[in-house]
């Protein structure tokens, strides 16, 4: 038996790691607490009482529903575009070697490596230069651009594991390129694409920095929240919406994790 694993960690390390994880999680849990507070005007802690009233109030707010609807529609279309572009790019980069391959990886990652404000203001000045009015589609355009990288990362990692001999075997057995794609490649990369798509959806659903530059008068849910943060109108409703946003983004992340955990790659690495 190898002796290179000591049985347990030093106490100091355990405490530091636990404290670090607590630091990451407690603030998010507090959101859940505040969604049920009876206090309306301030952020008083501990809350003087608990109520379910605000869930009903938020439910009846048409502006929340409109923002939620817009966010879901934008995220769906941006995810669809990112799925197509990211998969194509990943397939080309991983299945073939050609001049400028590294540059393409860099190009895909750039929209997320540079601060969001640069992407946002660049798109905004391009729209005004080309005299494109702000609309639903300008938001989608911005979102799809930075969602490509998430799909691309997941697909590239999976393509690396799909062995080339599998594809050759399919060809040898008489399948044409489309059949090979349909019956061999797609089943192999399916879960990675699903995971990438879900993360892209979560990313788009939550995006605020680029959106502030590419949306006109329309409010996505994050824009609505930002508005409430800068000029609070009804704090309890904001609390409820914040809780909702945490839940909506939580599910795709968990799903993406379960879809890709068998693999050696990391689903969301390098957001």
């Amino acid at each position: 038996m190898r002796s290179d694993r000591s049985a347990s960690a030093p106490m100091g390390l355990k405490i530091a790691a636990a404290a670090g994880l607590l630091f990451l999680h407690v603030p998010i849990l507090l959101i859940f607490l505040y969604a049920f507070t009876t206090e309306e005007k301030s952020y008083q802690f501990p809350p003087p009482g608990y109520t379910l009233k605000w869930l009903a109030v938020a439910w009846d707010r048409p502006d929340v529903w409109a923002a939620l609807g817009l966010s879901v529609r934008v995220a769906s279309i941006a995810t669809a575009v990112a799925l197509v572009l990211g998969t194509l790019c990943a397939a080309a980069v991983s299945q073939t070697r050609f001049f400028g391959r590294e540059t393409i990886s860099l190009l895909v990652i750039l929209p997320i490596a540079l601060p969001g404000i640069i992407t946002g203001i660049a798109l905004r000045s391009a729209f005004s230069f080309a005299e494109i009015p702000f609309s639903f589609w300008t938001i989608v355009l911005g979102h799809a651009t930075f969602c490509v990288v998430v799909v691309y990362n997941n697909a590239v990692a999976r393509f690396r594991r799909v062995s080339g001999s599998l594809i050759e075997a399919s060809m040898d057995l008489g399948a044409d390129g489309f059949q090979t794609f349909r019956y061999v490649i797609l089943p192999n990369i399916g879960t990675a694409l699903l995971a990438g798509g879900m993360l892209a959806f979560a990313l788009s659903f939550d995006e605020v920095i680029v959106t502030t530059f590419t949306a006109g008068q329309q409010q996505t849910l994050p824009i609505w929240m930002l508005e409430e943060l800068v000029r609070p109108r009804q704090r309890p409703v904001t609390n409820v919406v914040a809780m909702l946003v945490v839940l909506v983004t939580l599910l795709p992340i968990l799903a993406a994790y379960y879809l890709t955990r068998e693999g050696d790659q990391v689903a969301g690495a390098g957001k």
Partner: protein
Amino acid sequence: MSAITQTSILEGRSGTFARLSDFFWRNPKILLFLMLAPPLLWLGIIYLGSLFALLLQSFFSIDEFSGLINYEFTLDTYRQLLIPSNFDIILRTVVMAALVTLASAVIAFPIAYYAARYARGKWKALFYLGVMLPLWSSYLVKVYAWKLILAKEGIFTWFLAKLHLTWLLDAWLSLPVVGGNSLSISYTGTFIVFVYVWMPFMILPIQAALERVPGNLIEASADLGGNPAQTFRHVLFPLALPGIIAGSIFTFSLTLGDYIIPQIIGSSRLFIGQAVYAQQGTAGNIPLAAAFTVVPIVIMGFYLWMAKKQGAFDAL
């Protein structure tokens, strides 16, 4: 015999799809072109095109009287970056980004080290999700949560009062630069929220680097008489450094460009992101806004170049 030779060379397939597939098989370059064209056109035209258009604008200037953009090549706009009020913004942002990166590394290291060396099986998955969930959960909600915590009547003040440490908070807030009326309108508050929001990006690269350190290397160091501090200093830290640098790319870049956190939690003094936002919005000075965005691009370009030399990209 002849039957075998006949079937070993197949005729071309019939049907549109089959013929198309054979065509691509014979001309893989065309298939490659067709696969790459949509993503490259999208990113090349929409993204790079806008980026270059923006950079180009930084070489124009704005006419002070009419407020219109003067389309003549000039470096005047860049000169404006160096006037004290603008240069202070750049300096403040870079110092903040450096401090946030440093603090993130210090907090992230124990988590990454524990996850890489001690966590096994179920615990490993739990650690992974424990980092991924905060990393991916909503940015605005995280900022909002800290507004709740740091508000004067919020949980942090309450917690310190329970510990009878309110005097400590008051003493800290009375300090000249980092203090303020309350934590939610001070540099300290901005710093805490920056660390909170970007720190998860530091954990995974460090963990990836530490996973590759064999456990017996640590034991060898101990066998040779190194105490834990020496082992950390001479064995663990140098091996983790590429991971730390890789993580710092995220923390540094994200802090440089952020404009929402200092706007919601912070003093009224501007950061680069806010300056860009103000210049392009209310001031309508696109050239100066563009020149401001060049600053993070140049800093990040230099940073990435340094990181590449240190081998940080292998740890991503």
